[in-house]
Every structure is written in C-alpha cells, then in structure tokens.
C-alpha cells in the first residue's frame, strides 16, 4: 500500500484516557477506561462495539462535548495543530482554544441528525452561519460556498434545497446536509458517530461512498463509529474494538478480520451471519449472556463474565496491552500466559 511519509504522522493521539460519570446518589461509573487510539491523516479508524460500550462518549471526549457530570480523570488527547501538539484533555470545554478546534479542525456528524440540526432554521442558514463564524466572509459569499458544499455532498438542486428546513428532507438528504455542515470548515478530523445506522442500505451505501470520496479529496482523518461489522469492513483502514469501556483489540482492518486475537472480537465476528449459500451455512454462535452494566464490570478483564476461555487471572487482573504485530494490539491474558496457539 503506497503511503506518503506525512500519512504516518498521527494527527490525534489518545493515550490512557478514562472517562467517569458521577451521580449524586450512586458511586461514580468509569464508562471508558484507559483507552489508546491513533488517528492519521487520510485514514479511517472504525470504533466498534455493542450498545453502551463507550463509543459515543469516547468521541465526545475528543471534542470536549461530554455531559456536565463527566470528568476525564486520566490520560491525554494530543492533537497536532500544525504548530505543535495541544492536549485537548487539559483544555476547558468552553475555552477559546477548544472552540477554535471544535468545528474548524475537528468536526462531528452525530448519531441523530435531527437532534443536531436546528428545526427552525433552513439548512442553508445553518451552514452559512458556520462559514461566517469561522472565515468572516460576507453572507453572500458564504451562501455560494454553502451551495457548492451541498452540491458536493450530493444534494440535488442545492441552491433551492438550501432553503429547506430539516424536516422537509428525507433521512438521506438530512444526513448529507449534516455532512456538508461538518465539512464547512474543511476539518482535519471528521468524527462520524453511526452516520448511517438509521438509513436504508441503499442510502447507506451512497453516504459511505460520499465519505470515502470526501476523504480522498480533503485528506482528512476519520473516526468512524459503528456497531456494524459490515460497515467496518467497507470503510475502515484500522479497527478498534470496544467492550464495556475497554479497547480490547486494535489493528489493521484486514489483519483483525483475518485473525482476530481477542476472544470478544472473535465472538463478535461469529455472531454475524455470513453471506453464504445454504450448504455452507453455519449456525450462529452467540455470545452467552448480556453485557453487564459498567458498575458490575469485573476488576480484571471486562469480558470475564461472558468469555468462553476465562481462566484464573481473568476476574481480578487487568490484562496488559500486548503487541501482536506492527500496530496490532490486544488485551487478553491468553496472549501472555498461555502459548499463543491456544487461541488459534
């Protein structure tokens, strides 16, 4: 795979980051614990895992958009601004420094487009406003750029549609308008939180195409959150698998799909029906039980209560990050305490 030297330099490095939520009458919950992630220009990292495992919270932490009861008790979020690295974890959420990163350098497409588009303004006005805010251009110039953007993301009749309110658009067009808005300031990093989950497969395929195209055009890094392994296989360069607040495995998408090393990654892949002929069809092997609440997470490996291979050290000792090959890491005691064949 040809790589420019620049592409190897990380744009965003999350190191050892934890996120806790406090509540007045219960103990704190650690929703995300000690995760490491690296994002590189022109590349897509897919963050996958089941509902509640901490994907959205991780993404919001990078933009410092967490709820008021959240803290980041440990870790760094290093963002390369071009003039040195800034630790986003140390910035105040509403500080000038953070606001100049949010929306301009890093922008986000949210899980529910309706909740992030204003229902009382036209989509054109909403995109104009962002452009004016960041680039101090005249409203007329801003509108020209808005129309060009809407056109680029495939909104037919962009000039007229700019005057539409979000509720007047179909789900697919609304998602395109969201993407246009997120791209208004040509961000270096785009975070897309389940951008296609609510859409039909045909619309989903179009949006995935669009995101790939835009990534080629702008060379931006992308953090793509999804629970759909099919979507991961379509868009990702790298994959990070989360379970109950932990990143349990991370690596090149081809390598992880070919030989997943963490029992949870393996189990997840065996839960998806393969597209095979009847004769080759295998009964699904689901993961037993359900995801416990973060409050009941075992002190050791989070997957202990559902893991078919759990053994002595698992409930109490947190497995280390084990390097398996360049860029491929996993956290599981089997990788250090037993011969590696035990997993194959």
């Amino acid at each position, binding site marked *: *795979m*040809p790589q420019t030297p620049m592409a190897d330099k990380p744009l965003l490095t999350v190191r050892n980051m934890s996120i806790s939520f406090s509540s007045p009458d219960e103990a704190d919950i650690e929703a995300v614990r000690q995760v490491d992630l690296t994002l590189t220009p022109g590349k897509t990292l897919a963050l996958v895992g*089941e*509902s509640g495992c901490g994907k959205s919270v991780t993404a919001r932490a990078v933009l410092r958009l967490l709820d008021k009861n959240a803290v980041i008790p440990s870790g760094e979020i290093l963002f390369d601004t071009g003039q040195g690295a800034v630790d986003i974890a140390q910035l105040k959420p509403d500080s000038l420094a953070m606001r100049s990163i949010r929306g301009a350098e890093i922008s986000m497409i949210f899980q529910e487009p309706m909740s992030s588009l204003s229902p009382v303004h036209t989509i054109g006005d909403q995109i104009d406003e962002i452009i004016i805010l960041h680039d101090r251009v005249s409203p007329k110039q801003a509108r020209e750029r808005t129309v060009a953007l809407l056109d680029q993301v495939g909104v037919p009749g962009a000039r007229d549609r700019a005057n539409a309110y979000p509720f007047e658009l*179909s*789900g*697919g*067009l609304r998602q395109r308008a969201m993407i246009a808005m997120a791209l208004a300031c040509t961000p270096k990093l785009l975070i897309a939180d389940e951008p296609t989950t609510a859409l*039909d*497969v*045909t*619309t*989903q*395929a*179009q949006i*995935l*195409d669009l995101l*790939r*195209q835009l990534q080629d055009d702008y060379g931006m890094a992308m953090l793509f959150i999804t*629970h*759909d*392994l*099919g*979507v*991961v*296989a*379509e868009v*990702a360069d790298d994959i990070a698998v989360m379970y109950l607040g932990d990143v349990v495995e991370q690596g090149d*998408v*081809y390598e992880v*799909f070919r030989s997943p090393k963490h029992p949870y990654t393996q*189990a*997840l*892949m*065996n*839960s*998806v*029906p*393969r*597209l*095979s*002929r*009847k004769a080759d*069809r295998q*009964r*699904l*092997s*689901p*993961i037993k039980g*359900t*995801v416990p609440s973060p409050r009941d997470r075992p002190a050791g490996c989070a997957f202990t209560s559902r893991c078919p291979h759990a053994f002595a050290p698992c409930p109490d000792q947190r497995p280390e990050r084990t390097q398996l090959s360049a860029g491929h890491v996993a956290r599981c005691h089997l990788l250090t305490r037993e011969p590696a064949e035990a997993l194959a």
Partner: protein
Amino acid sequence: MTTLLSVENLSKVFTLGGGLFGKGRDLVALNDINLTVEQGETLAIVGESGCGKTTLGRCIIKALSVTSGHVRYHPEGGETVDLTTLNKREIKPFRRDIRMIFQDPMSSLNPNMRVFDIVAEPLRIHKLLRGKDLEARVYDTLAKVGIAADAAGRYPHAFSGGQRQRIGIARALVLDPRLVIADEAVSALDVSIQAQVLNLLDDLKADFGLTYIFISHDLGVVNYIADRVVVMYLGHVVENAPTEMLFERPRHPYTEMLLEALPIADPTRRKGRRTELKGEIPYLGNRPQGCPFHTRCKYAQDRCRSEKPALHAINGTAQQAACHFAETLELTGAYDAPQKAIA
C-alpha cells in the same frame, strides 16, 4: 408443500389530509399484492423503509382493514377462510393462530405490567386457561425463550433489549400459534443478542412447527434465516424467489441494487465505490407511471416508462419477478461479489 396463507390482489390505500368536505390525497401503500405462505417455511419480506412491509403484516392480522383483495387462511385440517370478510367476533379464534412480534420491544410491552402478566394476557383474553394451568403454560413459555421464572415478577424496564424481545416472542408463542409475523424483530438488537434471538427463532420453529413471515431490511440476516424472499418496492412485489436463487442471480434490478448495497463483514470483499446506486425512493404519493422502479433503474428503456411489468415466473422456475427484461438481464448476485483490488 401446502399453502397456509394466500394473499390475493391485496391493496391498501391511506387517504391523507381528507377533511369533512375536502377530498384527501390517496397514498397507495400496497398495490395489488399476490403471494402465498407455505406451511413450515420462513418467508422474508424485504425492501426499503416505507415500501409497505409493516402495512402488509398489519393487513394480514387484520390490525388494518384492506381496501380490496383477500387474505385466505388455510389451517391444516380446517376450512379455508377469507380473513378480510370476518367481523371482530369471527376473527377472534384466528388471532390465536396468527401472531405478530413487533419492531420495537419497548413500546410494544406495557411498562406497567409484570412480565408474567404480559405473557399471560393473551391467554386471559382468549379465556383459554386459568389458575395452575395458566401459570404452568406461562412459565413453560418463558423458559422456552430463556427467561428465568424468578424474573417473571419484574417489569419490562428491568430487562435488556434482547430480553424484552424474548418477552415479546413469549407473548406471541403462548397461544401456540401456527403463523408468526416478526416485524423487524431483531433489527434493534446488538449483534451478539441478535444472534441469540435468531437461533431462538430457529429452535422454536422446529419445536412448535411454526411458519414465519420475517419482515426485515437486513439482507444478511434474511439470507441466513429465510427459505424464500419477497422483495417489495413502493407497495409492489417486484421479486419473489427461493432465497438461494435470489441471492445467486436476482431477476429484478431493484433486488440487484439492494444486494449491491449490502455491506459484507469481510474487508477482502470490499466493494469500493458503487456509482450505480442512484436516487432515493420516490414518495409514495408521487408514484411513477409504468414500472414503479424506472426512475432509479439503470436498465430502464422507453417501454418501462409507459408499460407496467407484471410479476411472472421466470422460465417456469420458482423465481418470479416484475421486470420486462427479467429473462435477459444478467444481474449480479451476492455470493461471489467481486473482489476489489487493494490499491
């Protein structure tokens, strides 16, 4: 094979915005649907959102009245009845035979009822069992779907999404139905839970001798679970075929488009750009003339814009499609999707 249910020339028109005097606009949600459901099969119904899948399910169970057409039910050893002609009292016994599992487990379970009562309610409504017998049946059904007896006293909010879906399934099964209509029953579930529920549906089918109508937009799941697939577009059946035939070689361009769009959980089969995927589903109120799919079809000819293709068997096989060129088009299936060169 014996036919359990046949849907004949079924249409459903919703009238929108009709006032006391003004005439509303007609929205044809189902347009002359014909299909049969064979005893013991799993028939999947697929298509984009809004194409009429749920409406069809609701017309079959008579939760909606039909505008025209028939739903003939042929119970084993019983007489054929046209469900659409029955009144409220007459339909009641058939409500036991044909049950629906709904899309959203949370909104379909009464939050103020305990799980035991949620599952017992249909037995009470139909006055089938009481006391100890009722209790035994409820616990037995809960056990079959994997809900422990000691959880029966809890309320729905205390369960996970997958468990709630199991409770919904128990409620459907407690009456010992013959036909179960599952409307997006696994769509909202995480993959690991989805796999549990799919296996459960499979096991129950064998244990109870059930027939399923499985409504879904997920073709990967459909390929796994269904014996036959009906593809709907804008209220029409555009293809109806045994699962493997349909995935091997679709005969309708819309089916090909759906298969093309399906993401496959294997990066070596990555499809890359799919530039042919064009356009969105037209609003049902603005139904195109001729073939309903012609506004998005890359194979459309002049004839398609004026003449509506009929659903017909392809070369005498079990595969039916509604396309003028179904016999000649070389459409691409899903099993051997082209391998994309990794740049």
